[in-house]
Every structure is written in structure tokens, then in C-alpha cells.
């Protein structure tokens, strides 16, 4: 892996030295290609998942004879390095230098928020596959004309949290008999907003009392004082919300053998590489995850995607795509299906209309398993009683026959395997306390 990296580097330098000779030559094609841009980090698992999902879909479409009357798709990428200003520059680069027709994004929250004004200015159709920030959806709801070219095909965090409360009620309260928790969350916007949702609903909906709240600095090195405090509060379990450096609380939880169970949101545990990254110290972690998550049973088409993914990327990390890899793969298909019907990505309003009508349903054993459609303007989600314009059509009410579930709960076991434990329709395993908890 190291060798391939450094040789890539050498090639890159050589390419740079060759200079403009390369950028001038274009792929010889009868028709101009359609250009799809990727914006996001190049090296992170998150970014790579989106890149690879999109790459596989694009190669499949090109191999099948191209799109929009036989035009090929050209895929260009711009690195954000997970930095806000770099993200804005990357967006500008894609539109101004590469003249992209459509952008697929694997950006994280603040990076997406950063380039959003550029998107509104350029009016470039854009699909986000990773960030779940409901604030962006609210922008589409409130300022539709300005942000209508934006789509997000992961369920927003509000939907995630709402469904998670059901897990608390059905499993943590009813099955495990927990009555109190310590809410431990990082001081980031993600932590605060998720914790706020959980705090407001956990007691009234699930009957679990919050006996103590611990907000911690996202750069915390040592979680021992926090765990000590949590344990001495006498609560039944710890509810952790962590998105930044989430391996730290997860692995210190194991290293410290904290004697009460812990569940919640741990972003690092979304990927199959979590186990190796923690050197096996992820045991006992359970986390909510957007779908399709690790450990989840797949429909035939998604299973084929995974087969292709593994054949193509082998042991290069991430060894299994994160949820956004699937989102990118299906996102490319839905975007081009809409473009075929609209006659291209322009005029913009035609494409948006067709994208809003897009409905990709995936079935497993005759049951609706995943669905890539979007909430329409003015459509009200029945349970939360609000609009989610251009968010993926999630479902937060059993029997989940109206859309993909907003989230599932994934459990990592001490033998390194993982399984979905909630909702029951998708479950492949059971909630389990770590062995050191008595």
C-alpha cells in the first residue's frame, strides 16, 4: 500500500512536470462527455466511499453505452481536505474549470454549509451523500427557489434521532429494563443537537430518566474522569453522542472496562474498518447508523454492488463502503434517470422536477428494503408533522413499507462481528452488554 502511494506521488509529480500537455488532451469522443464532479475529502473513508460508489455507477453507465444518447460520463474530483475554505475553492474549481453538469458530494457538515452559497450562485445540481444536517434541509424548505438544486439522500439527523428513541423504548427500556441514563455528548453542534433531541424525547417517550448530563470538549484526551463520573451517578447505561474522534471514547471505554453498558451515536463505528482501527477495542459499541449500514442484510442489487466493490478495491480501505457509498452509487443512477427524462441537467427546473419524481425502490424477499426517492415540496412527514423537501424519503414508522428506515442500530460484538439489532424488520443480531458488565 505504501509503495503504491509513493509511486502515485511520483507519477503525479511527473505529470505536473509534463505540464499542460496533459490537460490539453481530452478523451477522443464523438460527443462531448457529461461531466460529473465529486466534492469531498480524497483520503478519508467517508470521502472514498462516495468516490467509489460514484465511480462504480459511472463505469456501469458508460459500459452500457453512455447516457443521454450515447454520451460518456467523465468523472472529475476536487479535494476539500475536510476544510471549509478548501471546500469553497474546490466547488469553484469544479464549476469554473471543469464545467461540471452535476456534483456529487461526500462533504461533512460545515464543508457543505461552506460551499452552499456557491451552489446557489452557480445553480449546479448537487447531491449530498454524507451530511445529515437538518439545517440544510430547512434551507431548502424555507428558501426553495434559492436552494432547490440541492438534494440529500441520507435521512436527516432529526429523522435519525426520532427513530432512535423507539429503540430506547423497545429495547433499552422494555427488553433490558434500563430506567436511567447518563447523557454524555461532545460540545459540537452535532453533539448538542442530537443530545437535545434525545433529551427531549427519551424520558416522555421511552420512560428513561436522564440522571446526569456530561458535555465534553471534543479534544478530550482522557475520558477516565468522565467515565468515573458517569459510573458514580448510578445510572443504568451511558448514552454517548460522538462524531469527532469517536474512536477515543469507544476504545477508552473498552480499555477502562467501564462497568456499565454504553450505546448512542458513534460515527467512527459506521464503517467496517472500525474493528481494525480500534485494534479490536470497539467491542461492545453500539451505535445508530444511517442506512445501508455495515452488518445489514442487502437486496440483490446492493449485494451485487458490494461484490463489484470488493472485486475492484480489494483490501484497500475502506474495505466495505460506508452508507454514503451506497448513496453515491444510487445517487448517480437517480440523477441520470432524472436527466434522461428531462433531456439533460439543463434546464435546471426540468431536471429538478424529474429528480423530485425519481423513485428507485429496492426489494428483498418481496419486502421494500431501500428506497431512493425524495420528499416533495409541501409534503408533510406524518410523525414529526413537518416538511423535509429534497431529503431522501425516509420512513420512521414500522412496518417501514414507505421508504428506507431513517436509521438502524448496529452492534459490534467482542469477536469482531457486527450486526443490525434494530428495527426488528432488519435485525440480524441482538443487543448485548459487554462481558465485563455484571
Amino acid at each position, binding site marked *: 500500500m*505504501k509503495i503504491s*502511494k509513493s509511486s502515485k*506521488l511520483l507519477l503525479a509529480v511527473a505529470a505536473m512536470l509534463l505540464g499542460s500537455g496533459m490537460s490539453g488532451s481530452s478523451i477522443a469522443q464523438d460527443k462531448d462527455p457529461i461531466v460529473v464532479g465529486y466534492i469531498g*475529502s480524497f*483520503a*478519508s*473513508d467517508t470521502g472514498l466511499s462516495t468516490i467509489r460508489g460514484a465511480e462504480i455507477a459511472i463505469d456501469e453507465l458508460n459500459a452500457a453505452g453512455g447516457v443521454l444518447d450515447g454520451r460518456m460520463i467523465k468523472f472529475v474530483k476536487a479535494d476539500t481536505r*475536510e476544510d471549509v475554505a478548501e471546500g469553497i475553492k474546490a466547488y469553484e474549481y469544479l464549476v469554473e474549470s471543469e464545467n461540471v453538469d452535476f456534483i456529487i458530494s461526500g462533504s461533512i457538515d460545515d464543508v457543505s454549509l461552506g460551499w452552499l452559497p456557491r451552489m446557489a450562485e452557480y445553480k449546479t445540481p448537487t447531491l449530498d451523500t454524507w451530511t445529515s444536517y437538518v439545517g440544510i434541509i430547512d434551507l431548502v424548505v424555507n428558501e426553495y427557489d434559492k436552494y432547490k438544486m440541492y438534494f440529500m439522500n441520507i435521512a436527516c439527523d432529526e429523522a435519525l434521532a426520532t427513530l432512535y428513541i423507539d429503540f430506547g423504548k423497545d429495547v433499552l427500556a422494555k427488553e433490558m429494563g434500563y430506567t436511567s441514563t447518563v447523557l454524555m455528548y461532545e*460540545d459540537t453542534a452535532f453533539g448538542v443537537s442530537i443530545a437535545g433531541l434525545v433529551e427531549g424525547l427519551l424520558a416522555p417517550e421511552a420512560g428513561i430518566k436522564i440522571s446526569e448530563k*456530561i*458535555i*465534553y*470538549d471534543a*479534544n*478530550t*484526551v*482522557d475520558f*477516565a*474522569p*468522565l*467515565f*468515573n*463520573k458517569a*459510573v*458514580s451517578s448510578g445510572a443504568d447505561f451511558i448514552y454517548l453522542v460522538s462524531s469527532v*474522534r469517536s*474512536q*477515543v471514547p*469507544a*476504545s*477508552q471505554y473498552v*480499555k*477502562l*472496562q*467501564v*462497568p456499565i453498558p454504553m450505546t448512542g451515536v458513534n460515527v*467512527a463505528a459506521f464503517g467496517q*474498518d472500525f474493528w481494525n*482501527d*480500534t*485494534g*479490536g*477495542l*470497539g467491542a461492545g459499541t453500539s451505535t445508530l447508523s444511517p442506512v445501508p449500514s455495515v452488518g445489514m442484510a442487502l437486496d440483490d442489487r446492493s449485494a451485487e454492488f458490494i461484490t463489484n466493490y470488493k472485486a475492484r478495491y480489494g483490501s484497500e*480501505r475502506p474495505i466495505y463502503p460506508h452508507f454514503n457509498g451506497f448513496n453515491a452509487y444510487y445517487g448517480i443512477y437517480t440523477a441520470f434517470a432524472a436527466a434522461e427524462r428531462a433531456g439533460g441537467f439543463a434546464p435546471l427546473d426540468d431536471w429538478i422536477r424529474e429528480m423530485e419524481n425519481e423513485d428507485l425502490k429496492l426489494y428483498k424477499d418481496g419486502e421494500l428494503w431501500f428506497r431512493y426517492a425524495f420528499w416533495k415540496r409541501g409534503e408533510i412527514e406524518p410523525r414529526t408533522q413537518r416538511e423535509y423537501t429534497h431529503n431522501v424519503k425516509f420512513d420512521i414508522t414500522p412496518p417501514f413499507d414507505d421508504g428506507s428506515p431513517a436509521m438502524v442500530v448496529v452492534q459490534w460484538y467482542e469477536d469482531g462481528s457486527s450486526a443490525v439489532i434494530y428495527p426488528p424488520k432488519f435485525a440480524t443480531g441482538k443487543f448485548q452488554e459487554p462481558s465485563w458488565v455484571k
Partner: protein
Amino acid sequence: MLIQILLPGLLLSGLYALIAIGFTMIFSVGRVLNLGYGAFIMFGGYIYYQSAQILGLGKVPSFVIATAAGVLLGLIVYVILIRKLKGDAIAIEISTLIFAIVTQAAIIVVFSPSPKSMWPLIPGVLRVGDVIVTYNLVVAAVTSWVVLAALFLFIGKTHIGRAIRAVSMDPKGAVISGIDPDRINLIIWGLSGGLGAMAGIFLATYTQLAPAMWVAPLIIAVAVVIVGGIGSILGGLVAAHVIGMLETITTTLIAAELRGVATMLLIILVLIIAPKGLFGKAEL
């Protein structure tokens, strides 16, 4: 409640002292901030990870390899950068900062930006009542005290140590008494690289490896130097404990999210009220 603060606070302080030693040494002797010190720490952590967890060379050999690699890195930085800049403090600070950023970029290219958790150096936990601490941290703290004691003896009792002290107090005077400050600085940078790498192993096995991990320990080291004052190893030790305790107290008793804010306020206050630090001797 008291033990909940004292025990973890003491151990965290030990880790902080270990993190700060190498940084303090360079600052005391050369009067320059090595803003690339965090890179030594990160480098040590990643080398250890590669050696112990990926190549499976075993903990003790890996520890030695990583520390040696740190010494080497310290020497290389000194020879390539520091010597060329001839004591221009600002130039050294900026170039070491760039060096840290370069190291970060290199780590991303080689190891990917994904954070990695590591097996503890010494597995297992110590339980005192409700309080849990890992052996890993206990060992880190004990190591730091041992290293500090050794360093104290080294500086006080050996010939090189006395030469180091002489350069630290008066570089020009040292030259007159036949000491080559260049050689002393080379030794210091090597030592600092090794100590940084060693601290990196303990820090990384306790927390995680990530390409941006050099910033947090650098800030801790800076805080220790400022609060302790330059030119005082003992001062650094006390300062590490002040900061470690302050963090633990803030986390446990006040509000965990103010941990970083408390440290920053302490730095600003000390610099404004007692710029020489609590134990510093040097003039500004």
C-alpha cells in the same frame, strides 16, 4: 469524590509532564519554540503503530524502534533546518511549524487520514472504589517521573549535562569555556526527538492516532512551559501537575466542555501576570 480527582489527575499530569519534557528542553537551552514538537510525538506514535500493530514486531522492540526513530528525526530536523537558521528564533518557529504541517500531510499520504486506536502498551485496569484507571496511564506517569529524575541527574551530574546547563544560561559564555553549543544543541534535539516519540507512544496508545494529533500535545507542552517557566525542569514538572489537575477538576467538578478553555485562560493569565512563569529565572 476526592479520589476521583486525585488519582486520574495525578496520572494525567504524569502523561503531560512526559509530553512536555522534550519541548521544555529545547526551549530552555536554545530559547526557541519547536513548533514541530508535535510532529515528533505523532511520528513516534505512528512508527510504534506500524511496528507493533501492523508488522507485529512486539511491544518492547517496537517501543525501542519508535524512540530511536524519534531521536533520528530530531537530529535530522536540527541538521536540515535549525542549524541553517542560526538561532533566528522567529525563523526557527515558523520553519518548525511548516515542518509539522508537512509531517501531517505525509502521514495522510502514507497512513490515510482515518484515526486509529491502538492496543494499550500494558493492558488492564486498576480499580480504586468507583474509580477506574488504566495500567497504561499508570506506566506512562511512572515513566515520566523516572525520565524526569534521570534527566535531573543527567543535567546535574554529568559532564554533558553541565555543558547543557552552561549553554542554557549563557551561550556566549559557554563558547568561551570551550563548549561547542552546536554539539550541545544537536544532542538536545536528538534527546527531544526521542522523548517526544516516547511520549507519543504513551499518548497514542491511550487515545488514538490521527494526522492532526500533533496540535493538542503541542498546546499542552506550551502551557507547561509557560506556567512552569523556562529553564526549570522542576518547574515544568509542577506545571504539568497544575495543568493536569486543573483539567481534571474542570472536567469532574465544573463542566467537562470547559476543559480546553480553562487551560487557555491559565496560559493567558500566567503570561500577563507572571510572564516568567511560576518558577522561571530567565529574563524576557
